[in-house]
């Protein structure tokens, strides 16, 4: 189990993030869906973008504080294009 604040803090230490939205999918605090917007994603494909997030969250993923992680990743330009 992990808190949204811990997720944001852990991510922010590893990569620059302009937005992190967390959704607890089951209410149990270990199945998370994240929307992450980061300039580090610029020019990268989805696989590389997801790899950066997985790498940043390696510890909570490894010790099962995060059991399942669903990701949506965007560069700031991609995010702006969505009009969000």
């Amino acid at each position, binding site marked *: 189990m992990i808190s949204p604040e811990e997720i944001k803090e852990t991510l922010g230490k590893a990569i620059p993030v302009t937005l992190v939205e967390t959704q607890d999918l089951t209410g149990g605090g270990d199945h998370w869906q994240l929307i992450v917007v980061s300039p580090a994603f610029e020019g990268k494909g*989805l*696989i590389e973008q*997801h*790899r950066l997030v*997985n790498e940043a969250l390696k510890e909570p*993923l490894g010790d099962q504080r995060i059991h399942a992680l*669903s*990701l*949506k990743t965007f560069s700031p330009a991609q995010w702006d294009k969505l009009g969000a």
Partner: protein
Amino acid sequence: MAEDVKDRIDEKVKNNKVMVFMKGTPDFPQCGFSAHTVEILRSYGVQFASEDVLADPAIRDGIKRYSNWPTIPQVYIDGKFVGGCDIVHELHERGELEPLLKSASEK
């Protein structure tokens, strides 16, 4: 990863234009992410091969090292790792999956 496991994975990835490593089978998926991935692929009516990693612990572990990707399912198109459930879903929504599948089937 043992050399023979890598060879077995290599063979499946190279010999199938669309290859899915999943939990369960396309008709009886054992995990929601695998089920959703198969559902998307089927919506395009493409042929794909699949491997049930639950039936083979060596492949289940090996495939994660093969792609350096921590989760299953994993989809390979034209010998290349495309992604898991989230990425396949995203490509599908962006309309980028169909051209990938189409170019693979034409080769």
